[in-house]
């Protein structure tokens, strides 16, 4: 309805000199910055998405940007920024040997989402970290990062939730592909290993049988043993990766049943592959070439992800006020579900239905590997994996070792006021003091198991870890006091976060608190030899037990944390949040396998919605109130951020031109009011002219006033040359008609004459209009020929807003019980009719002809509603017996 560039345009022309002088203040939830934000100096031209990787060979490196050409990023130092991005990831997970388990354990780790600001570069970024599995990589994981980079800090903060939802989808896509590729790779490796074992066994047999073991025999035996071990390990890994989705479900029994058969099946399928002998000593990691991102998650999924990222970039690249306005607009339109079909673009209130963005089984040929499990929306893991996610450790040494500010990984400051806003929406916000945090899951033999010696610190960090696992948590890294890490403090300051946490506790208890042993980063570093690489911002010098002093130290670091500022996300429209996207986290927690089973019907309903038009409309509002989180997080459906230009009936540009032409019509023709009145009151308006282009232009312009019957399209016929019939008037409300000078032409005119009570005729060649008189007041405002509005798009908006007002009146009239039904038993029809009229004239303040407009709209509403609910309502033509007048210029 209201699109932001128009607001901008409007503001630029008229309001900049005296900003907001006379306007009554809008309710806060609707307030949108009137002016486009002034771009802070930045080295890049516009927003872009940066995909980067922490390579174990070369450290952080940028991989690609969206859009791909360098124009967006400009002279911006991608390498440097990638370094900054990758160093934020405190939650990376690794594979290792957890205590009590003999084999490496894969973790299905939740992505982390943070905001990063760099005031020096003028860059702010939403940073989305994810890990992909790679058999050849250290710990089998490769950390990656998707970042939305913008110069507008407010945009990043304001759109955090939306961005997070979108990026989660993209990340899910990547990870799904990766799991397939990884499973494939494991299978290959297993075959190699088995082959190797066979070869070794054979060799062993060939060894001369002697009484005592020769060193050669021992060596062989060792080799064999290590291969055996390796096989077991890999098989275990394969099992883990395959069982991935099952682990996310509570009813894990089905996993056992189904996991086995296909394992047996999959080998015959891969008969074409020739196994290779694996040498005992594998190559050093520096020698081998690491897989590219495409290889890691196979091409199909990679391309899908790229498409999604491109879409995200398209959606968000506009100015913040544009984004906010269109979001507010969409949210508001959704509230008017009953009336929206009349004048709104169907797109604005229809749920955007994006089909399952990628087909799980496509492009890989690995359908055996993904039997039933992967067919489910991959969003699942974002719920349950959070449970398994990993505690945060806080390292003080980082600050000490990298005192230079530019090398600091993260310094984010949150604004208290904003925090409160976001808390109200049920999100948890982490305020961390640290530069660096890391999550560790592996168990090092050299370290004592912390579970057996729970230190106060461990308890504390465990509590912190609980905080992090809440869905959609926003971690704003910043400097603050050490006390804030104590859970009690969270409880005190952010009450809503507590509830959420409590509900998580349940989950944890059910689903695996045991997965949360806490280890320091130190452990990891020592085990995994990270220390070799200096680029790694986390150094090995720190050790466990330093936390307490570290906190104290850090509190002194506050000063230089200030220039890298990122505020926590403000709420664009809090009021609406309550109504429309309530209970994000709570819902997520409550998300259970039941909802999973619901996923498919929901999906189908959405399909119905698009096809049959009628129904899912209803779903949508309900969906908004109770399972928004599902919808927004599921990769299948996202309604939150449809790209504005994608699916309108009229594109922005067309709207603009229609508005412009309508404006011209109003200025040019003194009888614009009666003509528009005809359209609004359901009387067909015929535009008669010789030249097709001119007629069509006017038809398009005036079509903005035509109410639709239903959600399909407007009853507008742009151009016709044949004589009209009564059916046409039932079907079309605005018709462009060719004037022909010939016998057939006179026939056309005859039929017009005959049906003159159903049509108004606007002759644009002779500039006359024959139509009923209009004496109302509404159109004076809607179509004021002395209006100050100059731009087409602004006028379009103006029209939309007045029409919306009108719709709400029609809505009130239609759905007011006592206006249509008797209050008492004895009430006569006349009394009710009088009450109706009083309501229209006195309450709604409608003058004579305006009443008819509302009555017509009300009739459309009724028919639409009855149609929606399945009662067969055929289209009808309503008309009045009113005399027409001939208007001339």
């Amino acid at each position, binding site marked *: 309805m209201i699109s932001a560039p128009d607001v901008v345009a409007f503001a630029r022309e008229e309001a900049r000199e005296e900003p907001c002088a006379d306007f009554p203040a809008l309710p806060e939830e609707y307030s949108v910055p009137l002016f486009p934000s002034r771009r802070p100096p930045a080295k890049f031209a516009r927003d872009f998405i940066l995909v980067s990787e922490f390579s174990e060979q070369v450290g952080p490196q940028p991989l690609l940007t969206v859009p791909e050409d360098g124009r967006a990023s400009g002279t911006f130092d991608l390498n440097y920024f990638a370094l900054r991005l990758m160093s934020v990831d405190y939650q990376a997970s690794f594979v290792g040997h957890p205590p009590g388990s003999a084999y490496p354990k894969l973790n299905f780790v939740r992505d982390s989402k943070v905001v990063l600001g760099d005031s020096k570069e003028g860059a702010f970024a939403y940073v989305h970290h994810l890990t992909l599995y790679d058999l050849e990589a250290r710990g089998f994981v490769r950390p990656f990062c998707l970042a939305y980079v913008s110069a507008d800090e407010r945009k990043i903060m304001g759109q955090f939730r939306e961005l997070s939802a979108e990026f989660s989808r993209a990340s899910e896509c990547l990870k799904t592909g990766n799991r397939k590729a990884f499973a494939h790779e494991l299978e290959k490796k297993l075959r190699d290993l088995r082959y190797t074992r066979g070869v070794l066994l054979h060799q062993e047999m060939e060894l001369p049988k002697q009484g005592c073991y020769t060193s050669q025999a021992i060596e062989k035996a060792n080799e064999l043993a290590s291969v055996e071990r390796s096989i077991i390990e890999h098989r275990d890994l394969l099992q883990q990766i395959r069982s991935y989705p099952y682990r996310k479900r509570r009813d894990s029994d089905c996993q056992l049943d189904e996991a086995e058969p296909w394992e047996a099946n999959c080998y015959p399928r891969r008969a074409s592959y020739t196994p290779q002998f694996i040498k005992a000593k594998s190559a050093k990691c520096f020698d081998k070439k690491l897989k590219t991102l495409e290889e890691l998650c196979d091409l199909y999924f990679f391309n899908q992800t790229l498409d999604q990222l491109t879409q995200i970039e398209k959606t968000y690249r506009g100015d913040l006020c544009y984004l906010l306005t269109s979001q507010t607009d969409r949210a508001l339109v959704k509230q008017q579900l009953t009336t929206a079909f009349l004048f709104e673009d169907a797109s604005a209130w229809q749920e955007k239905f994006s089909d399952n963005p990628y087909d799980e089984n496509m492009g890989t040929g690995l359908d055996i590997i993904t039997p039933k499990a992967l067919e489910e929306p991959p969003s699942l893991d974002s719920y349950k994996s959070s449970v398994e996610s990993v505690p945060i450790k806080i390292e003080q040494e980082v600050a000490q070792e990298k005192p230079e500010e530019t090398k600091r990984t993260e310094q984010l400051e949150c604004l208290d006021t904003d925090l409160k806003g976001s808390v109200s929406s049920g999100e948890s916000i982490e305020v961390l003091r640290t530069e660096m945090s890391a999550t560790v899951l592996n168990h090092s033999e050299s370290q004592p198991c912390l579970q057996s010696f729970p230190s106060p610190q461990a308890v504390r960090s465990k509590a912190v870890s609980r905080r992090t696992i809440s869905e959609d948590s926003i971690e704003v890294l910043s400097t603050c006091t050490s006390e804030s890490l104590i859970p009690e403090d969270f409880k005190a300051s952010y009450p809503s976060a507590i509830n959420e946490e409590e509900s998580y506790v349940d989950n944890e208890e059910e689903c695996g608190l045991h997965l949360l042993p806490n280890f320091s980063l130190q452990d990891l570093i020592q085990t995994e030899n990270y220390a070799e690489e200096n680029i790694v911002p986390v150094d090995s010098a720190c050790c466990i037990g330093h936390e307490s002093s570290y906190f104290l130290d850090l509190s002194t670091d506050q000063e230089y944390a200030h220039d890298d500022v990122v505020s926590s996300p403000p709420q664009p429209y809090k009021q609406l949040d309550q109504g429309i996207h309530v209970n994000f986290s709570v819902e997520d927690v409550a998300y259970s396998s039941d909802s999973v089973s619901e996923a498919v019907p929901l999906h189908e309903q959405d399909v119905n919605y698009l096809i049959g038009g009628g129904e899912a409309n*209803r779903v949508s509002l309900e969906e908004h109130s109770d399972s928004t989180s599902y919808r927004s997080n599921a990769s299948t459906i996202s309604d939150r951020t449809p790209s504005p230009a994608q699916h309108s009936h009229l594109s922005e540009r067309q709207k603009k031109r229609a508005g412009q032409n309508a404006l011209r019509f109003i200025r040019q023709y003194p009888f614009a009011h009666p003509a528009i009145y005809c359209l609004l009151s359901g009387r067909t308006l015929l535009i008669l002219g010789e030249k097709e282009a001119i007629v069509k232009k006017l038809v398009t312009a005036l079509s903005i006033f035509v109410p639709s019957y239903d959600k399909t399209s407007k009853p507008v016929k742009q151009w016709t040359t044949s004589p009209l019939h*009564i059916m046409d008037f039932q079907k079309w409300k605005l018709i462009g008609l060719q004037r022909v000078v010939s*016998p057939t032409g006179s026939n056309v005119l005859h039929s017009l004459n005959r049906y003159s009570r159903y049509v108004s005729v606007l002759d644009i060649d002779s500039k006359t209009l024959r139509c009923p008189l209009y004496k109302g007041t509404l159109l004076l405002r809607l179509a004021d020929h002395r209006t100050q509005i100059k731009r087409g798009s602004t006028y379009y908006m103006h029209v939309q807003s007045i029409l919306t007002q009108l719709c709400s009146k029609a809505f009130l009239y239609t759905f007011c019980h006592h206006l249509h039904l008797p209050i008492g038993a004895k009430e006569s029809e006349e009394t009710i009719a009088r009450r109706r009229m009083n309501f229209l004239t006195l309450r709604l303040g409608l003058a004579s002809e305006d009443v008819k407009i509302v009555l017509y709209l009300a009739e459309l509403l009724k028919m639409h509603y*009855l149609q929606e609910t399945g009662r*067969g309502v055929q289209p009808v033509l309503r*008309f009045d017996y009113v005399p027409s007048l001939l208007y001339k210029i």
Partner: protein
Amino acid sequence: MTFRLRLRSRKSRLLVYSVFETAGSGVVSCRQLGAPVCSSFALIGRKEWPKPLLLVALMLRWLLGSREQQGQQEKSPVQTIGEEQTHNPYTELQVLKAHHDIVRFLVKIDDYRFASAGDDGIVYLWDVQTGERLFEFLGHTQQITAIAVFPSSDTSGEPNPLILTASSDKTVIIWDCDSGRQVQQISDFHSTVKCLAVLQRLDLWLTGGSELRLWNRKLELVSETSHFTDSGISTMIELPKNCIAAAIGKDLIIFKLLIPTDESDNWDIHEVKCLSAHQDNIRSLVNVNELTFASGSLVGELIVWDALDWTVLAYECSFWDTSSHHESMQEIKLQKQNEISVQHFTTDGKCVFAAIGRGIYVYNLEVKRVIAYQRTAHDSSVLHIAKLPNRQIISCSEDGSVRIWEIRERKHFSAEAVSTGFFNVWGFGKAGKQPSQTLKKMQDNAVQSSVELIGDLIGHSSAVQMFLYFPEHGLVTCSADHLIILWKDGERESRLRSLNLFEKLEENGSLLPRF
């Protein structure tokens, strides 16, 4: 504007056509004199037209095209009503499109259903409230010639109402209205069945064509008459004392049904009397009340008969030419075709409402006089007329319009005669002369009431063949333009929809529709 053409067909039959333009519509139609079929140029394909006719039609339309600017309305003596029709309740219409040829028949099945049939041989069943198409009856290969409803009766085993349809393919098919099935097809007729009559009292039905056949509810042939040499029975009605009046050509023949006595199952039909009072073919036949019936012929005779002893109670033949002499003077060169045929009439027991030519007449049986009339009610022949309970008359015509009239008592008719309402009758062009003439005429005829136009329904683009009136739902019209239109009271429909809406709301329990 009308042309009359005499053409000789290949079989050397002289066919007289009139080619005329439906005023204001721009539709040129042609009509074979004496035949009810009217084809209009604009809509029906040209191939149906004989070539000379087509030429004339084209010429006529060309003439019209040039004349059009001068204003068609002034030339027409037909009463017109402006766009402001405060008494016209029909402010909502719904077009039902299913047929693909002329729709000729509409029959009411019950309070909410009706059937339509026409030249495409298909019968459709409709819901008058929603406009929904309930059934499609496919079975006839040629046009339907007669349709009748056999209402449900509790005595026989058939609870569902039946529809009987007769067609030019010499069959009669019986359909079940509730299940939409074809019950039976009867195809041993020698010629086309032209009329059907249901004797509900006796649970019998009749087919009339070249012979009269009597059937029972079980669809068994009970009895039949001998073959009529003439064209056959065109229409028939039931009379008291188990008699039937059937119109064969100019004659009216009374048949008597012999009801079987206790034991024997012998039905029989006897010709009792032949009434030859009409000078031309009998076009319409109607029961007025228990004791009287009326018949009308192509030359405009109206005869009122006693239903018991079949004597002529009244004979009227001149009321169609009340003002024909000055009419012929006005139309100078083109011969004005004076439609005088009694097309259709209806009755409310006291009066006969006749559609004669282009006019409508109200004939009072007590005073045996025309008490009100509208000589040129339409631009061309009136095809159907009906009386509504509220003193209203509805008529439809070949000109494609339906008009609603109101009978108004005229107390001081001399003063009333010059009122604006009457002024309108004659249009603006001849306002000076005609009122006085009409006044004189009225005094001559002692007209006590007047028929005032209170509204017209424009929607069809060709001849409106017939209409049905549903007191609860409005009017259904069918036309040669293949369409059926439901005309409804917009106010009432709006209220109904509101009621539906709130019902639905209550069902759903919330504003938002649910599944």
